[in-house]
């Protein structure tokens, strides 16, 4: 009975997964390869090709697959290939492919595909090694459960449900009914959540089988009816109905409600079309019906019905069926007292049971044989029965232990992982903390360093300006001294020398008027000459003392000296204009220093880069703004091409210090103009 479901699930699985896979690739070669793989797979799917051809196609697909680079894509492809091997019943290849898929998924940390691979491997192992299958399903279940914690996807829920029901069925087969019941209920909940009812009939059937073992017969029947209910919504209604009626019949048989049991077997047998296609199930129903009839002493069609079923089963070589049938016949003949015939059937059942290692039935066969054989043989069979019974019990216990161990071990591993991840977390936090600390330290260090640099630059600038101020003061004092001296000389000449000269001339003139010695004219000439000398001295005196040079001239002098000196050194001609309206005296030293430095910097730039022959420097005063223009006839530069050097940066920073603006205008080949505009606060006029 299990096998029917088995096949059914496998095919459904495959169909679902194939449907899900829709590789959507962008890279061309990848696309090409993917198309090729797809076409090989399609070819392998084609049932018209021979098995050999289909296998070859799969091998080709795998060959191309191994050249792929994208691991996610690879996982999907290898899973698809594995389904085809499953379809070809090449289960070992199916297992190999899925083991590869699992490895790949682990390497790229793709938990969804890891879960899928575990589930597929479980499907492989559930045929023979239940414990390994259980382990795989258990792993898959764990991943699905954690995936569903933060993903509401119905698809994942459905896959999760499939894994759960597989586990439940394995547990049921190993007679761990209570555990199986819990898992089945969980599976049902999961399927309902996924809103996909395809496996609900299967789940309820399993639940029905379990509750029967717990002897809760009403509940068992209820579950089987529910299975039919859910199957009605799906396509395989008839198959499920037949199976469920059969199961219900068996439940009633266990309750010894033979009429009811008979009624359900007959109900199931009424699906003649379906049973004609499924002889194994037909035979089973017949056998069950016959057995119930026999138990209820309704011997009308007995043993013909047994034989009919036995014949069908023999013809399709349904070994489990043959065993059951043979045992029923043995039982029948034993009741009739025909021990020899009974033991023939029992021996047949025993041989087949040993053949397919069905220990349950083997046990039953030994039971009958021990009763029907003569005392010596009977003892031997009884002993065999006891031994087998013990070993079966042991095996059950072993399974239970194994599964418990699997659950425990994985829990342990999970705990270990948790421990490790906790440790890792602590490590990461420690590393991060240390890094942050180090960074902080570094930043503080850099800050201090740059502060020091800044302080140094500041003091340097201050001392620079101090030097300049002293220089300027020196110049001003020099100028004042010079002016004072000039003034003194001027006054001396005007009042002293000129006065005395005038007195002398006047005296001479006076005397000359009186003298009459014929030289009057000649003397007059010299007297006039004296007058001319006076005039000249007066002019000199005037020039000397005319202008009491304002002290601000000193600044402009310093500026002009700078320009003159630099231009002389670099052999460049210059033109310098200073607007007399600029009140240099009233402008603070800071600004004067800045202008001085800007000029110096600009001229350095010109000498270094411009290859100019002539420069023109103007200080203009317009609307309370001093405009400094420095113009050269050099090679210029592309304004956007030259990244700002330290020179230009210094100029810009100095100008912004004075709340001014600076413009660098240049074009290749047409010289450069630096124009600085600095507003000067209007002086408050004094009124008195």
């Amino acid at each position, binding site marked *: 009975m299990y096998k029917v479901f088995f096949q059914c699930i496998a095919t459904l699985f495959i169909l679902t997964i194939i449907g899900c896979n829709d590789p959507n690739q962008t890279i061309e070669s990848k696309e090409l390869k993917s198309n090729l793989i797809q076409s090989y797979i399609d070819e392998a799917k084609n049932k018209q090709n021979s098995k050999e051809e289909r296998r070859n196609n799969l091998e080709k697909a795998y060959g191309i697959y191994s050249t792929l680079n994208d691991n996610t894509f690879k996982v999907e492809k290898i899973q698809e290939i594995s389904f085809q091997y499953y379809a070809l019943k090449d289960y070992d290849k199916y297992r190999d492919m899925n083991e590869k898929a699992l490895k790949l998924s682990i390497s790229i940390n793709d938990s969804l595909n890891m879960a899928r691979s575990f589930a597929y491997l479980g499907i492989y192992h559930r045929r023979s090694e239940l414990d390994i299958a259980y382990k795989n399903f258990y792993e898959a279940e764990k991943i699905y459960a954690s995936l569903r914690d933060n993903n509401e996807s119905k698809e994942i829920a459905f896959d999760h449900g499939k894994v759960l029901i597989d586990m439940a069925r394995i547990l049921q087969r190993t007679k761990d009914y209570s555990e199986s019941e819990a898992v089945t209920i969980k599976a049902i909940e999961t399927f309902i959540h996924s809103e996909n009812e395809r496996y609900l009939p299967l789940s309820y059937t399993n639940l029905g089988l379990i509750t029967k073992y717990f002897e809760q017969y009403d509940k068992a029947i209820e579950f089987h009816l529910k299975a039919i209910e859910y199957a009605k919504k799906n396509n395989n209604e008839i198959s499920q109905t037949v199976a469920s009626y059969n199961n219900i019949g068996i439940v009633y048989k266990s309750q010894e409600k033979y009429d009811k049991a008979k009624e359900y077997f007959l109900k199931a047998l009424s699906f003649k079309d379906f049973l004609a296609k499924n002889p194994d199930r037909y035979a089973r129903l017949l056998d069950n019906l016959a057995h119930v009839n026999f138990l209820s002493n309704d011997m009308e069609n007995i043993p013909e019905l047994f034989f009919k079923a036995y014949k069908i089963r023999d013809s399709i070589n349904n070994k489990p069926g043959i065993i059951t049938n043979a045992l029923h016949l043995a039982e029948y003949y034993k009741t009739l007292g025909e021990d020899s015939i009974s033991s023939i059937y029992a021996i047949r059942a025993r041989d087949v049971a040993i053949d397919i290692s069905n220990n349950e039935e083997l046990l039953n066969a030994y039971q009958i044989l021990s009763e029907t054989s003569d005392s010596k043989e009977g003892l031997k069979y009884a002993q065999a029965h006891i031994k087998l019974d013990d070993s079966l019990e042991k095996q059950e216990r072993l399974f239970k232990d194994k599964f418990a161990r699997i659950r425990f071990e994985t829990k342990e591993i999970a705990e270990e992982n948790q421990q490790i991840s906790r440790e890792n977390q602590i490590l990461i936090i420690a590393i991060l903390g240390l890094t942050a600390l180090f960074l902080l330290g570094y930043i503080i260090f850099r800050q201090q360093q740059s502060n020091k640099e800044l302080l140094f630059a500041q003091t340097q600038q201050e001392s620079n300006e101090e030097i300049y101020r002293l220089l300027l003061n020196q110049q001003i004092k020099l100028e004042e001294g010079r002016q004072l001296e000039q003034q003194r000389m001027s006054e001396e000449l005007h009042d002293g020398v000129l006065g005395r000269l005038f007195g002398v001339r006047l005296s001479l003139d006076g005397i000359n008027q*009186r003298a009459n010695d014929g030289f009057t004219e000649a003397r007059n000439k010299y007297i006039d000459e004296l007058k001319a000398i006076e005039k000249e001295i007066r002019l000199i005196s005037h020039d000397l003392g005319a202008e*009491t040079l304002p002290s601000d001239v000193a600044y402009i002098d310093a500026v002009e000296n700078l320009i003159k000196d630099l231009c002389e050194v670099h052999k460049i001609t210059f033109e310098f204009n200073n607007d007399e309206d600029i009140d240099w005296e009233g402008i603070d030293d800071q600004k004067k220093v800045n202008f001085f430095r800007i000029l110096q910097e600009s001229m350095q730039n010109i000498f270094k880069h411009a290859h100019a022959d002539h420069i023109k420097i103007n200080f203009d005063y317009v609307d309370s703004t001093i405009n400094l223009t420095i113009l050269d006839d050099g090679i210029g530069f592309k304004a956007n091409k030259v990244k700002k050097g330290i020179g230009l940066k210094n100029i810009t920073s100095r100008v912004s210090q004075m709340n001014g603006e600076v413009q660098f205008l240049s074009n290749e080949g047409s010289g450069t103009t630096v124009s600085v505009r600095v507003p000067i606060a209007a002086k408050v006029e004094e009124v008195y």
Partner: protein
Amino acid sequence: MKKKLKVLMIDDHPMIIEGYKNTLLGENQKEYQIKIDIASNCDDAYASIVKSSETVPYDMLFVDIKLPPSSDGSITSGEDLAKHAKELLPKSKIIILTMHREDHRIHNILKNINPAGFLIKSDLTSSELLLAFNNILKGKAYYSATVNDHFRKMMTNKFSLDEKNLKILYHLSRGVKTKNLPNYVSLSLSAIEKRKNQIKEMFSIAKADDQMLLEEARKRGFI
């Protein structure tokens, strides 16, 4: 009978007094008997003036403008002395003799003192001094050519500039900047600016800059 004349010569240079003496004591001794007093500073000069006002007043005073000031500081120049003299000796003829030939100073002296004679030393020859001396004695004023020039300039303009305006123009022409003018002219900067604008308006060059103002002033003979 020679007419008696009493003259006070004020100059801090003995050489110049010598020159005056040499000029006057030649020819004029025939006509006049000149008694010459000498003062070389303001104190002496003032003392002489006061003394003469109480006795025989001077007929004529030769006053230099630049003189060592009086010890109490009340009299600082020949100009101040001349003012006192005018009060104390109203009948005395005052002859100003100075090295200064700047228009505004000439203007001021003419305005404040209105002297009988105004001679610029640099123009002066002994014959001119004599001529001036004689004219003044006869009651005619005598001015040097330079002073006369100044008069002529003033006459050609329909208006005259007052002393302060002239000072402003004078200092501007010397190259003093407007903002420094308050140091030279006892006016506030705003007052000076106002006056400058007035002058420009008078010259009908309202929107001219300093350069044009000075050119115009030169043309009109204010400088």
